[in-house]
């Protein structure tokens, strides 16, 4: 139970709840709150010393944020 593990668990649980029930219910707030469990999962992977998993997850996380941004832009353009 090193500090990274506990901190990652706290971020993962709290960020998931905050992303499921955002305070102003907009897509943008939901997406910004989704960054918190992503960093919590990164800290959890860090506590097991998985360097390749960290590199892959960092890249794929930024890519998935770009895809969600395109989805939100298309939904706002169509109404």
């Amino acid at each position: 139970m090193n500090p990274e593990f506990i901190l990652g668990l706290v971020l993962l649980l709290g960020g998931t709840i905050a992303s499921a029930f955002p305070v102003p219910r907009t897509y943008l707030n939901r997406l910004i709150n989704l960054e918190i469990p992503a960093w919590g999962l990164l800290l959890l992977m860090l506590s097991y010393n998985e360097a390749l998993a960290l590199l892959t997850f960092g890249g794929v996380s930024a890519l998935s944020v770009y895809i969600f941004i395109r989805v939100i832009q298309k939904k706002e353009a169509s109404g």
Partner: protein
Amino acid sequence: MQEDWTAVNDIVVTVFGALVLAGALLTVVERDPYRKLISLGIMIGGAIPFIVDRGLLDVAIAVALIAPLSTLFILMVCRKGEQ
């Protein structure tokens, strides 16, 4: 030498763990998207020294260069009138 190393590690864990928790709490509490992004910057600044503390320096370089990209992507949706 061992005492010094644990002292340094203790400072790092306490201060940057507090920074991560404060940034996450502020991100949840704030309502304006710009203020949420600034608080997210606090959380990222607290999380990267943990990666450096483990000795994974190449991962730290890659994450420190990739993490602002997702903030830039989110900023493409934020507009001035929407706050």
